[in-house]
């Protein structure tokens, strides 16, 4: 009422009031975090993962190089995954490695177009050094180690720490006996993307750049694990001999053949091939939990909603199906997406156009859900099958190299 309540005096010489601002800023941060999380959920859900596409890596690298930086476009790519948590992060990282097919037949131009290296036995890892720490993640996306390293921006030490756009991403195999990360590929160096570079260039970069840092040095408090570059060779008879029997610091588990023109792409690729025999690998045949080689070849396949069981290839290959009454009886144990173990029976596998079409498979039981890499790929099944029946031998490889055209470019820098 007039006269009593009156008009309140106006604010005079308004002094600052920060409280409302604190509230608003906190609210804005919460909103932003929520938006970020939802955006990520959407990107991961959409199947094509935009953050992992190499072209965006280039953008990021470009921005840094040309220094007309727009803050929003920086640090895209794998580092986006660092904002994810738990299962979402694991799912994300499990899709970031390039996976070799198994060598089912010998590619042409082996000598001209391919490099070779011995493959260390151990855990395949994605190693990311960024923001002052180094994290290694296994093929299923789980963290193996989180540690300081002498990789650029891999530790919080004066020599190594750098701005957040400086990060490194390596493809490694962690070799437990000597606690060493064996580097088999390099995808990013100091924020510079190598995804779209040829393997040949990546190997050159990997060998020279790593040597410039202290990453290859023995461990210290700020460099918990040693890194070591796996030597890469051009593919000739002498180098094949060397990687096959020559002395290496690690336990050998087969040989890797890499097409020297191949870009680094996520998932299975025929441009990287794995080959092994009993001479160069302790793990030629898959073993059971007791370490024995089963009498019948074992395969792991994924169960689909329609009862078929398929390989991990894109698109998957159907190798058989489970009877529907069996599925109904065991509905509580067997769900679409589960990994199942089968034995290949006496009928073996029928192969058409280099692909298995039908296999005589017998259900054995469930496989671990967290199995690295999920179901077996076609080439693995075929390689294992061949290894039991008519293996591709080292002699076959040598013959192929000798027979291939000698005019090939042999100017490998490493």
């Amino acid at each position, binding site marked *: 009422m*007039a006269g009593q309540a009156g008009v309140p*005096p106006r604010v005079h010489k308004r002094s600052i009031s920060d409280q409302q601002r604190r509230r608003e800023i906190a609210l804005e941060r919460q909103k932003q975090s929520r938006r970020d999380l*939802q955006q990520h959920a959407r990107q991961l859900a959409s199947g094509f993962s935009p953050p992992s596409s190499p072209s965006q890596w280039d953008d990021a690298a470009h921005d840094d190089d040309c220094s007309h930086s727009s803050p929003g476009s920086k640090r895209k790519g794998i580092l986006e995954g660092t904002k994810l948590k738990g299962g979402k992060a694991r799912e994300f990282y499990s899709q970031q490695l390039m996976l070799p097919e198994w060598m089912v037949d010998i590619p042409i131009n082996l000598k001209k177009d391919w490099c070779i290296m011995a493959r260390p036995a151990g855990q395949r890892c994605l190693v990311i050094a960024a923001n002052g720490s180094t994290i290694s993640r296994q093929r299923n996306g789980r963290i193996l180690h989180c540690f300081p390293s002498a990789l650029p921006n891999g530790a919080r030490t004066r020599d190594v720490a750098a701005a957040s756009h400086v990060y490194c991403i390596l493809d490694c195999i962690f070799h437990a006996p000597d606690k060493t990360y064996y580097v088999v590929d390099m995808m990013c160096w100091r924020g510079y993307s190598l995804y779209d570079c040829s393997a040949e260039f990546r190997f050159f970069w990997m060998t020279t750049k790593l040597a410039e840092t202290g990453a290859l040095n023995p461990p210290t408090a700020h460099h918990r694990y040693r890194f070591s570059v796996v030597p890469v060779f051009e593919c000739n008879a002498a180098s094949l001999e060397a990687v096959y029997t020559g002395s290496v610091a690690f336990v050998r588990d087969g040989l890797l053949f890499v097409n020297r023109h191949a870009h680094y792409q996520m998932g299975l690729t025929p441009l990287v091939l794995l080959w092994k025999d009993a001479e160069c690998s302790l793990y030629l045949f898959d073993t059971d939990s007791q370490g024995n080689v089963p009498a019948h070849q074992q395969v792991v396949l994924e169960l689909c909603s329609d009862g078929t069981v398929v390989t991990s290839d894109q698109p998957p290959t159907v190798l058989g199906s489970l009877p529907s009454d069996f599925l109904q009886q065991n509905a509580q144990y067997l769900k679409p997406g589960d990994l199942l173990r089968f034995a290949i029976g006496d009928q073996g596998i029928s192969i058409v156009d280099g692909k298995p079409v039908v296999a005589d498979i017998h259900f054995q039981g469930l496989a671990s859900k967290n199995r690295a890499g999920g179901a077996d790929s076609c080439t693995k099944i075929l390689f294992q099958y061949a290894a039991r029946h008519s293996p591709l031998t080292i002699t076959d490889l040598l013959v192929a190299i000798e027979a291939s055209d000698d005019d090939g470019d042999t100017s490998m820098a490493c």
Partner: protein
Amino acid sequence: MAQEVTQVLLNAQSADGVVRKVAEESLKQFQEQNPAGFLISLSHELANNEKPPDSRKLAGLILKNSLDAKETGRKQELVSRWISLDPTVKAQIKGALSQTLSSVVPDARHTSAQVIAKIAAIELPQGEWPELVGSLLANMGGLQVQQPAHLKQATLETLGYVCEEVSAESLAQEQVNSILTAVVQGMNASETSNDVRLAATNALYNALDFAQTNFENDMERDYIMRVVCEATLSPDSRVRQAAFECLVSIGSTYYEKLAPYMQDIFAITSKAVKEDEEPVALQAVEFWSSICDEEIEIQEEYSGDSEVPYFQFIKKALPALVPMLLETLTKQDEEQDQEEGAWNLAMAGGTCLGLVARAVGDDIVPLVMPYVQENVSKPDWRCREAATYAFGSILEGPSLEKLAPLVNVALNFMLSAMKDENNHVKDTTAWTLGRIFEFLHGPNVQFPIITQENLPMILKVLLESINDTPNVAEKVCGAIYFLAQGYEDNSGGPSPLLPFFQNIVQVLLATTDREDAGDSRLRTSAYETLNEVVRISTQDTAAMVMQLVPVIMQKLNHTLEMAVLSSDDREKQSELQALLCGVLQVIIQKLGASDTTKLGIVQYGDQMMSLFLRVFACRSATVHEEAMLAIGALAYSTGPEFGKYMPEFYRYLEMGLQNFEEYQVCAVTVGVVGDICRALDDKVLPFCDGIMTQLLKDLSSNQLHRSVKPPIFSCFGDIALAIGEHFEKYLIYAMPMLQGAAELTAQQAIRDEEMIDYNNQLRSGILEAYSGIFQGFKTNKAELMVPYAGHILQFIENVYQDKERDDSVTKAAIGVMGDLADTLGPSAAPLFNQAVFYKDFVDECTSSDDQQLKETAEWALSTINRITNTG
């Protein structure tokens, strides 16, 4: 019995605590045993002229308190209790109250007027008590019947209260007309009793909102305006003041009708400002301030089509108005800068000048600058202060091009004036410096006032002057605050404040420790300025900010050891804790946002958290809020590690969610739940039963401020996203709430701005909830959402059709559409085939300039296409 009541009522006001207590107890018993009889005897007590004024007054007050309460739930209860009373009881009480209006005892009349209005507030909206207005008007007499002045006064007062209590719809237009007629007659110069005129003028103030129709009619409006203007010339200053209050109200309610009267109004306000007593002069200035408010708002909305025409009253009055206001500036009080809540003509005049500057922009500058130049160096401090105040007041409004050259010249003068011998001059100078930094300093200012060259000098002066008296020091803090804020968006390059950073921080900390920091809000300003300095800190100064953490923690720890003997002590402790938690919050948020500094914050996590928990144990609302915000920031920084604090913290989280009264605390806590969900991910699961229960209770409560409800919906989404399939068990509770709210937003008919805004907030919240639930269920529980898909898509269509839809709703809605398609897969294809609107919606979004919206829309479309093509 009646005699007894009188004695009990008197005893209830006794100085003797024991007597009082016994009396209160027996009143309570009486009320419980016979509620109707209790009210009747109170009304008879009030009506009885034989009774002592004190017992009558208390009887009236108890009556009033049994009809209305501040708290909504209690109020509702009282209202229904009154409605359920026997009609004859109600009639008796009303009769007694009406009778009291003619009492010669002023207190009894006044109390009765209030009680009548309370009953009217309950009954008129229900169509009850139709005879009230008529019987009141009969009290006013007429040509034949002359009524006593005190009855007319009490009646007008009652009419005023009734107008204040009831809404316009509860009165018929003819009732409004008769009320206005009675009121305006009472105001008329022919009314000989000043008390009647005052009551009538006060009643008009409350009745103005009802007078829309009357103000449309030229004749009626002219008459009302004439009477109001005449009342400003009444010999009684109370009437003059009340009449100006009416003018102020008319100025904002009926702005578009004012044009014919402005010349007269200028004359009477100008006369009052120059000659009248201060309370009257203040209202006269306030009239112009409220016209400025209107015209500032009209111009702000001008780009959108404002329905109110812009008459440029201020611009037209400018040549006369500005000198009038300048004249007020030298009428300062000696003590004005030391007194909290001081308000005088000089302050009102300067404030109005500031509003005029915002209303007219550049035009004010040539009218004010000569005054400034003439007075700013005069020997009389009043002139120097007034000139500085005038200059400071016009710094917001005019263009930067106009102001920059003037400020460039004035800056050095202002810096030296910080050494003026007079405290008020220094106070106003420091305030003016703050205004300069606020409006003419920042990344977007084309001709920077502050340069690498003069910055050291500016800081030297400020950091010296901060040692001045608390009122000056407080203004200096403000200046540093805005100086820092100007560097907020300083992109690239080292901060210009870097060399001074450490020094500024130390000086601010020392200021908070001053013995006299409790005066003039100095301590608060110093801490808040520290906050701003932390906010603008860069990587280069991160280490110094980090060093603040143990310092502030120690201070917070110190508050826990303060001796708290009185409520004053308690308040002091709370205030300090709120400030310190605020500083910690700002630091955590700042350092936690960067991966390189986050680790440092995490290291202090345990210590900070244990302090916050101890602060909670002191229980105070504001502290609760600040500590809660700090904890949210901590959860954001620590991530999953925050889990270790949950067992102890949980009960305070729950308390926060239960705090209906201080809804800000509740709102802030809801936000912190979101932080915790994102930090803990599925590890938050064990706490979700409790949290969800509380959130659902909050939503169903009508005590809780509605602004908390949208964030609660968003919070559902946060929880669902964190715990994924485990949200299943809450689905049957959450979905009906979401659907109900969604339907409510679709039915909202009243489209005032506030409602539109609220509707949008509500929709954002609902949509964010849906997104979180879809995303959470995607992997394993998609089928659970199938039954709701149709409804949700329908809701999105409603949202799409809404013309008032804002950007955040658009973004959320297009996202949910994609989430729905993505989660439900081909089974949702038929829905999309029917809901053709989605294509238009996507088109609208993809043609937006907002990159994020575009991307989300493209993603949604590709997801929908994927499922509709395979389906």
